[in-house]
């Protein structure tokens, strides 16, 4: 679980997110969008599979995920009611794992993220995540 600052629409929100290699893209609870003054009523949604057997409407906006002074990633991020109970985000393949190297070493008790050097430019803004 990583601490990050989610930045969009001139607003900021500090929160936590889990690295989830099984997630196609990055997603956060829908209430985070409201806190960032992003209005779901102005944005179409797609139905996204969440977890095992569940699904929920997901709204997408461009946002920046800031990880302290180490890393800043611009990405097309989903906001979904399917993560309301978790209260934290998911850092998935598009937007996170396609930008960094991640090593899970459970026996060693180490979770390592290697950032690019020099930092990579943001993903193309026209990216649309697949609908599951």
């Amino acid at each position, binding site marked *: 679980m990583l601490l990050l600052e989610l930045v969009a629409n001139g607003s900021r929100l*500090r*929160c*936590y997110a*889990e690295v989830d290699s099984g997630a196609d893209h990055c997603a956060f609870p829908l*209430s985070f969008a409201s*806190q960032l003054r992003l209005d779901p009523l102005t944005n179409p949604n797609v139905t996204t599979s969440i977890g095992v057997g569940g699904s929920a409407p997901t709204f997408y906006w461009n946002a920046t995920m800031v990880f302290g002074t180490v890393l800043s990633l611009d990405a097309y991020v989903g906001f979904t009611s399917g993560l309301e109970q978790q*209260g934290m985000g998911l850092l998935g393949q598009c937007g996170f794992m396609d930008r960094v190297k991640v090593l899970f070493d459970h026996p060693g008790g180490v979770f390592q993220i290697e950032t690019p050097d020099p930092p990579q430019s943001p993903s193309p803004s026209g990216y649309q995540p697949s609908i599951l």
Partner: protein
Amino acid sequence: MAPAVYDFGELLQGVPPGAWVAISGDEKRVVAYAAEMRDAIKAANEAGEQAPIVLRVPLSPSAFLL
């Protein structure tokens, strides 16, 4: 360097299940909590914490299968 591992169990002790929690920037103190996230943030702001970290206490102790 040892990995930074935090156990929120002690920090969140006494916070009702399902509550949104605003914690201090140093991750050591619960500043406010409420049923709605915006209310927790508002209370934290009023308590002087301008950029709290928000998270939610699970309704029950369980693992995530995402």
